[in-house]
């Protein structure tokens, strides 16, 4: 008997691929978050580890349950839920109660991702949805100052808000960079996050325009305020290295589905978020404006996406009303 001819796989072109996958990208993001996570454990002890584990686990379980309810094949193995959970816990104080971590993480997944149809559908950055719900519902537990009682570290942004520039004289930038400050347990590890962010940018895993735009927005706006009155406003570098600016610029604002896709809109989006951070910090009631600034910029993303070049060989872009 003649052997059967081999059965071929028939697919549409292109038959080759660059090799980047969603799972690979999530893995890279997790690697980029690792140094900050380690530093968080170093500074805040087992409490931080507890919050991170709870957050990640709750997100994965929540997504799995949603998939069951929605009767579809679960894709938790793409690590996105895990990343969202960990990102959410990075924004919490290490003292956050367990039920709030679990609730907020689940809300991030349910309201920030699954309700829009899963990965890629959300117009908002998922972890920030959970953060916003928690900070509106339990301001006392989300309050960074509450965790101050058990730590020798301070929350620089709250001191700036309530006691003015004089109060933050004691901070030098080096210690801010290694995370010797209070705030979201992972988000304040600014130096480590910056290295992680650079890694993602070099590996082309994030929209670099967003990060550069946001950092530029923060520096420029804070610089303008500083120039206007150095006695009243903190320096741009202080703003850059406190709260979750670095974390936001590299890990939150770059969320693919909630940021614009083209280069110029992406840079404008980042710039908007950066400017809003400082405006909220200066005029708002929140010491750290980053999460809300990014959420607000998310709302502007579809508008910014309208800025587009002419298609090849055409006089003008087609009728694009939706």
């Amino acid at each position, binding site marked *: 008997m003649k052997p059967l001819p*081999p059965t*071929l796989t028939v697919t549409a072109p292109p*038959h080759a691929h660059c090799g980047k996958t*969603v799972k690979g990208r999530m893995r890279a993001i997790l690697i980029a978050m690792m140094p900050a996570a380690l530093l968080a454990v170093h500074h805040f002890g087992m409490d931080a580890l507890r919050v991170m584990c709870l957050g990640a686990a709750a997100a994965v379980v929540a997504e799995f349950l949603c998939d069951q309810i929605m009767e579809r094949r679960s894709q938790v193995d793409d690590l996105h839920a895990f990343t969202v959970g960990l990102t959410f816990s990075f924004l919490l104080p290490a003292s956050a109660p367990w039920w709030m971590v679990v609730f907020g993480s689940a809300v991030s997944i349910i309201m920030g991702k699954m309700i829009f149809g899963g990965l890629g559908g959300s117009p908002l950055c998922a972890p920030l949805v959970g953060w916003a719900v928690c900070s509106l519902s339990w301001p006392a537990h989300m309050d960074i100052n509450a965790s101050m009682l058990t730590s020798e570290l301070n929350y620089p942004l709250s001191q700036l808000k309530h006691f003015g520039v004089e109060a933050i004289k004691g901070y030098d930038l080096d210690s801010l960079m290694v995370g010797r400050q209070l705030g979201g347990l992972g988000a304040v590890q600014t130096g480590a996050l910056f290295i992680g962010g650079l890694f993602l940018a070099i590996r082309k895993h994030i929209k670099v325009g967003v990060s550069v735009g946001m950092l530029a927005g923060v520096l420029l706006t804070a610089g303008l305020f500083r120039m206007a009155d150095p006695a009243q406003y903190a320096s741009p570098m202080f703003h850059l290295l406190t709260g979750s600016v670095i974390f936001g610029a590299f890990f939150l604002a770059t969320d693919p589905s909630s*940021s614009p896709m083209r280069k110029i809109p992406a840079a404008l989006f980042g710039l908007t978020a950066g400017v809003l951070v400082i405006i909220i910090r200066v005029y708002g009631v929140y010491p750290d404006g980053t999460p809300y600034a990014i959420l607000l910029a998310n709302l502007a993303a579809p508008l910014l996406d309208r800025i587009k070049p002419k298609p090849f*060989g055409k006089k003008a872009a087609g009728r694009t009303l939706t």
Partner: protein
Amino acid sequence: MKLFESIVREGPLKVLPAPQVVRVPMSCHRPEVQCGQDVARGVHIGGGRYAPISGTITEVHPYYICITAGKEVQPVPKDLSGLRGDALRQVLGELGAKLPQGPTDTLIINGVDPEPGVTAFTHMLTEFGSVLSLGLETARKIYNPAKCVLAVEQGRPNSLNGCDPVHIKEGYPNGLNPLVVAAVTGKEAPEDTVVLSVGTLFELGRIMETGLPCVDVVLTANERNFVVTVGTPADTVLSEAGLSVRDGDTLVLGGHMRGEAAHSPQQGVDKNTYGLFVIRKGEYPAVIDAPCIGCGECIQVCPARIDPSTISGYAEFRMYEKCADHDIDACMECGMCGFFCISRRPLLQYIRLAKQHLAFAAQCELEPQREG
């Protein structure tokens, strides 16, 4: 696979003898021959395809016509001397070379290899100078151009008599016809410009030499270039090139970015097949029916500057008219979007689907949204 590698191959091409059995690929065409009929080489067998060998038709399949070699029948060549302009173009069309209408101002010969890994075009330029010159002369007779340009990749010394060489930035997709035109003329989609690939010139040259339809094609397989008869089963070329296919592999006729996946190793090569590649099972992440995550990779690599993610989303939900609103017609089907999509969406497939529906709707004036 690298998109930007630049390979030079030299030395004579290997000419494969005409096989005993050919399968001439056909689709959507009414065959003009029947099973058991004897045909001479060069006879029209339907759909603009010609018998590449003399023999007997042994199978008429919706996708191919199989001919088994028989007694050599001397075909009757057409007399092409003395023809010019559109008359020549029409006669060539009857011999299988479909050419765009002329006359034109600028004639561009695209000598850039069509896809990464394919070296057949540049190799033809060095080895088949006389055939190509004849082809060029013919094209000149048809188009009567004021200016003739040969586009080659940067750093290549190739030339063709009477053509000004223009160097094209290396790397895919810079060698595609629309982009070459833009690079040569400085205008996107200008009028009064005709582009012919080196493959087409080769066909013209061969037709002029013999007065018969061209039955040869030059293709790259396993880093070597071959001259093969149209309809030669792919596995004949593969074994000659030292390649083999296993269960689950993809056999590509053409190139990685735009080629067609063969349904069987016996499938015959077409007259525009410039490469033959085997892609191992699992070599690249598999295409999946995944949603777009909005990463923007596809938009940033698209040479047409359109938005493949949005267009594919609309195509997915059969909203083809929306695809037209998003300038789907500017797409040059280069495949870059699908190559870079991190969700591994079949972007080009969606785009082709939408284009086909739009063309169909324009033809029949059907409501594209409802039909489908």
